[in-house]
């Protein structure tokens, strides 16, 4: 239980340290479950760009998570 909460907080922290574009694209896909077509419309970008941007954003998030020290505390909100 504590471990889960700690993981969640770390994810929130890592998310908030991303650029707003990267955070937006990850949230639109993984959180709101929009399709690439819908994300392209929302963000006014080409559909083909969505996959590469999303991949870069996920890689950055993974990197941030790996570099983060284990903490208990932080921001509880996605945005």
């Amino acid at each position, binding site marked *: 239980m504590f471990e889960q909460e700690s993981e969640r907080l770390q994810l929130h922290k890592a998310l908030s340290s991303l650029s707003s574009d990267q955070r937006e694209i990850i949230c639109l896909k993984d959180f709101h479950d929009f399709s690439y077509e819908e994300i392209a419309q929302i963000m006014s970008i080409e559909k083909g760009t969505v*996959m590469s941007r*999303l991949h870069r954003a*996920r890689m950055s998030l*993974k990197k941030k998570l790996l570099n983060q020290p284990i903490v208990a505390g932080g921001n509880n909100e996605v945005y």
Partner: protein
Amino acid sequence: MKCIEIEELISGYLDAELTQQESQKVRLHLETCEHCEQIHCEMLALKKQMSALSYPPSDLDRLEDLETDLTASLSAATGWILLGTGALIVIAFAIYQFLVAPDTPLLVKIFNSVFVLGGVCLFISVLRQRLMTLKHDKYRKVKL
């Protein structure tokens, strides 16, 4: 295909956004490449973690919940019923007082009644129009 090309496609593969042919390529590559398979597993775990996050409700959602919860609806309905009943009693009493007042000439009573009746008729006509429009409004259930 090289790892660098596959890496770009891993996200699309996870989100089921690739063509059948591309998916096949990625699947075959993942079976043979440990490096890309590791990235795939990490991305999958991240995606699962992300979808399990809680989303803070917006101020508008909170406001809507406050306006539509049971207490709010009940108190609003009670308020309207009390207000309507009170207003009806007061208006009826005022009309009665006006009509039975001994020192007001009959002609004044008639003219005033005609004037008020005209206003009531106009109000009913506008109310009817509004209700008809509301009934035929295709978008009334659409949440903006």
